[in-house]
Every structure is written in C-alpha cells, then in structure tokens.
C-alpha cells in the first residue's frame, strides 16, 4: 500500500485526476445542500439569463438560467449526481458480470471459453453507441436502461481482462498447490485466484467509469438516456442545442463538466496503471 501510494504520487496528472474526482464526488453527494435551487425550480421571469460575469447576468443565478428559467449551476450540481451515479452503477454492473463471465471462460477453457469469447467479439465488433441505442430501443429509454445499455457495451473489455489475468494466474504453482490441498473449482478460482487479478480490474474500472459517463451522456444527447426533467449532463446538452448561438453558456457548461470528469478519470486510470501494473513500471 505504501509502495502503491509512493508510485502513484509520482504521477502528477493522476493526483490531479484523483483530486478532481474527489471534488466532483463531494459536489455530487452534497448537491441538495450546495445547490442554491431545486433542479426543477423554474423562474419564468428569468429565461436564458447569462452567467454573472456576462452583461445582463444576475448574482442570483451564478451560471445563468436555461430556456425554462432553471438555475444552470443547480442543474449541473444535481447532474453530477446523475452522471457519477450512472458511472458507478455501470462499473458495478460490468465488473460483476465481467468477473463472473471472465472467470468461467478463463478457468474452464475449451468450448465454453470459445463460445463466450466469440460472443464478446461480436459485442465488440458492433459500434458501441449503436449497440447501446439498440438496447435502449428494446428496453425503452430510462435511467436504469441507460445503465444496462452502457454496461453491456463495456462488458467485453472487462471479460477479456479478467479472462486474460486468469489465464496468466492459472499457470502459477499456487493453483496446482491449492488443488493438491483439495480445493474445488470455486475455491481455487473464485477465492484463491481472483484476488490476484484485482490490479488490472481496478485500472479497467477507472476507465470504465469515464467510458460509462461518456456513453450515457451520448445516449442522453440522443434523447435515449435520462429523460427530462432529470438534469443529466448529456440531456442538458441536447436540450440547449437549439440555443447554441444565442445562449452558448447553456451548451458550454455541461460539455465542460463531461470533458473534465472524463479527463480526470482517465488520468486517474493512467496513474493506477503505472502504480499497479509491474509491466508498465519503467524505472
């Protein structure tokens, strides 16, 4: 743990990423208390008000208001909840199913492995956003279905990573040793081998978070994700697309939020990889 932190600290970008992720998480958790208004509160007297530093801005609405007179800052803060929540549940979904499927494929091998991996190849061959659209089209647009759709899209990469690490670990002596002590399939693989595959999974989870947020935002932008009035960043982008020239702050702020969060998670993932993956250690 100490060694991990030492290596992680050397990557300044990763520390910045971690800091920003932590900050956004705090914002997301405290959104109902931090936000000056309810996410759905409308002020008919202040439609499309610019941010405070622009001409005509008001200090009541720091980042301005949207076309229905809702406070942009409050919506972004509440949106952080939604977006991070989606990311979290997508990672939970993919990690759980990815581990189960990857474990079965990697440990059993043979035909089971071939069938599972070919199915994953098919999933990977489809363009991710298209696949997500298909899933949402079948299940109907909602927040939960967004999580499922985005989860299915990012499932193959987790399955591959788990399977690959299981295949590496499988050849190690302790696996035969564990079998020679009478451990069955479940004990050998799920209890003894799996903990040795955590490092690549953790890295993947970090990237999965950003992918999940990005894909969910894309679905939201297409109107297939979170439905209004839920303040999801992608949906906010889509709603304000019509005002891209007259009220550019409405598009800029949620876009910036998505960009920064995704960059932060990617930096964090890079740092984790440098610190956890011995193969990537250069010095």
């Amino acid at each position, binding site marked *: 743990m100490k060694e991990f932190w030492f290596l992680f600290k050397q990557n300044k970008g990763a520390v910045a990423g971690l800091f920003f992720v932590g900050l956004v998480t705090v914002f997301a958790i405290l959104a109902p208390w931090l936000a000056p208004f309810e996410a759905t509160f409308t002020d008919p007297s202040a439609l499309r008000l610019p941010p405070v530093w622009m001409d005509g801005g008001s200090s009541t609405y720091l980042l301005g208001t949207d076309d229905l007179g809702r406070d942009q800052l409050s919506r972004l803060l509440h949106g952080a909840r939604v977006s991070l929540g989606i990311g979290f549940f997508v990672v939970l979904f993919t990690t759980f199913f990815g581990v189960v499927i990857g474990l079965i494929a990697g440990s059993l*091998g043979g035909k089971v492995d071939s069938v599972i991996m070919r199915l994953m190849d098919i999933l990977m061959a489809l363009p991710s956003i298209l696949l997500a659209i298909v899933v949402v089209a079948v299940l109907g647009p909602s927040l939960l279905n967004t999580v499922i759709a985005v989860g299915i899209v990012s499932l193959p990469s987790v399955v591959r990573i788990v399977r690959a690490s299981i295949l590496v670990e499988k050849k190690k*002596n302790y696996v035969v*040793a564990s079998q*020679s*002590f*009478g*451990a*069955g399939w479940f004990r050998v693989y799920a209890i003894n081998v799996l*903990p040795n595959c955590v490092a690549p999974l953790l890295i993947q989870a970090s990237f999965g978070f950003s992918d999940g947020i990005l894909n969910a935002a894309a679905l939201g932008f297409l109107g297939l994700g979170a439905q209004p009035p839920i303040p999801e960043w992608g949906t906010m982008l889509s709603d304000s697309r019509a005002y891209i020239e007259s009220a550019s702050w409405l598009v800029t702020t949620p876009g910036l939020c998505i960009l920064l969060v995704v960059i932060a998670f990617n930096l964090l993932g890079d740092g984790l990889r440098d610190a956890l993956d011995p193969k990537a250690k250069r010095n």
Partner: protein
Amino acid sequence: MLLEVRNLSIDFKTSRGQIQALRDVSFQLSQGESLGFVGESGSGKSVTSLAIFDLLASNAVLRSGEILFQGRDILKMSEAEKQKIRGKDIAMIFQDPMTSLNPSFTVEYQIGEVLTEHLGLEKHQVRERTLELLSLVGIPDPQARLKTYPHELSGGMSQRVMIAMAIACNPKVLIADEPTTALDVTIQKQILSLLGKLRRELKMSLILVSHDLGVIAQNTDRIMVMYAGEVVETGESKGVIQGPMHPYTEGLLKCLPALHVHEPAGFRLPTISGIVPNLAERPQGCQLAPRCQYRQKNCEQVAVPTTELPSQKRQVRCFYPLQASKEIST
C-alpha cells in the same frame, strides 16, 4: 498396502504427437515407509507424483494402470471424493515454495483454509492449530508470522509454511517433490531433517522426489530409480547404493562428488555420456541402450521386462543386471 501404483502409463498429447511420459510404472508404499524417486529431469518423477493426485495437465492421457489408495483406485473416484483425499490423506510439498503459496493471502489464512475445509474446525480452533503447526515446523515466533504474506518470508520459511499446510490434517502420505531444490544447502539440510522428524512423529509415509541420489539415499528406506518414464530399479536404499544392479543407477552413483573425495586434485567426475532419449522418438529396446556401456545386441531391439529378485528385495529392468553378471563371471 497404503498406496499402490500398478502399471501406470500416461501419455501427453503435444504438437509433435502423443508422447509417452510414463511407461508401466509400478510401486508400493506401506504405512510409515519412505520412498525416494530419483531420476534426471523429464524422467517422470513429477508426473508420477502429480498423477497420484490426478492433477495432471489437461493434455495428459491415461493409457493404463491404477493408483490404489487404501485399496481404492483414485483415478476412478468422483471429483468430490478426490477433493476429500487431496490435502487430507495425501498432501504434497512443491519444488518452489516462493511461488507455491498464494501471494494474496496471509500465512494464517492459507493454513486455516486447509483446516476449515477438511476438518471443519471453528475459528479459535483454527488459530490454535495453526500456531501449533507453525511451531511444529520450526518457525520462530509463530504468533508474529500469522499475519505475514508469502513475499515477506524467505525461501526456507515459505517451505516450512508449505510443510505446515501439508501436515495440517495429519496426512497418511506426504509427497515432497524436490522440496529443497530451490533452497540453499544449509536450509536444504534443515528441511530434510524436519521432514524426517515429522514422518517419525506423525507416522506418515513419505515420497521424496529428487534428482539428487545423495539426498534420497540419506533420507529414504527404499529407492525407485526412474529413467525416461520407466522405473529401472527399485530396492532398499542401502542395498541399491551399495550394489546398484541397473547400469543407470551405477552411473548416477558414480557421478556423486561425495564418492570421490579421496581422488587427487584435478580429478574429473565421471558422467553418463549421451542425453535422455527424446520421448517422441524412443529407442526400440532398452531406453538406456544408446548410453549404456554394457549393452548387448538384444538390448537395442527387445523391450526389457522388469525382473524380480525377491532374495534381494530388488526389481530391475535390465537383461544383464550388474551384480548378477558379476556373480556369474566370478
């Protein structure tokens, strides 16, 4: 008989075709006895010991034979029955202790796992028994070692932990597959004497696998010499060392530096010339024939059967056993 292996033949499917890894291996192990497997790399020592657990790689094919443990054939048992025996009645110690322990778990967890799985002990009993085992295998300050991870232990310590795991359930048979090869010489001696002590105290049978005839001779009652997947000679350790009957055993003995301490400086150790046959292209007759200085014409053509010599409690796979021929010539 506690453990009896009869006519075990195992093949491996490889990209170069099916190769015969074990040919007609038979041996017996009685209660409390220690048996040594000796042979060069690839002679089938480790395959034989893993076969007893039925834990060979998936490309292994059983051609014939049975492995009787207390009269029941392990190879015919269900997976659940085998799991009950593995680690409880038959336990194994591996060559490289540093990689045979799981890097993600503490010493206490790994020993405890065996205890809870096989004996169903409660948590506090596990702790007690683990401490007892650790002190039994000579680990100083066992209490402090409970929470250590394998990477924090030295090779010798890791091997002691392995031994503690192996003897946790008082197994009837302990198989030690080159237990000291990865350790340095002083530790080697300690581990071997520990194994001997534990065998006497716990009344276990021991199978000691090594390529070092000296190690085997000092630590076992009987010796089984293997060459190219066949058993070439079996007999009591003393007898085999004093009067090897198979030319290969004789060759192995002559290679031992300890036998040549009185030779002048610059003396060259004898070697067995040639190399182990490629198992994919085995010689027709005796496997050793191309390397054997005593070979006759028929050695190269006819497969050699095992000859029993009950008077000397010896089995030899050779047409012209050494001492027998000496007796004839004198």
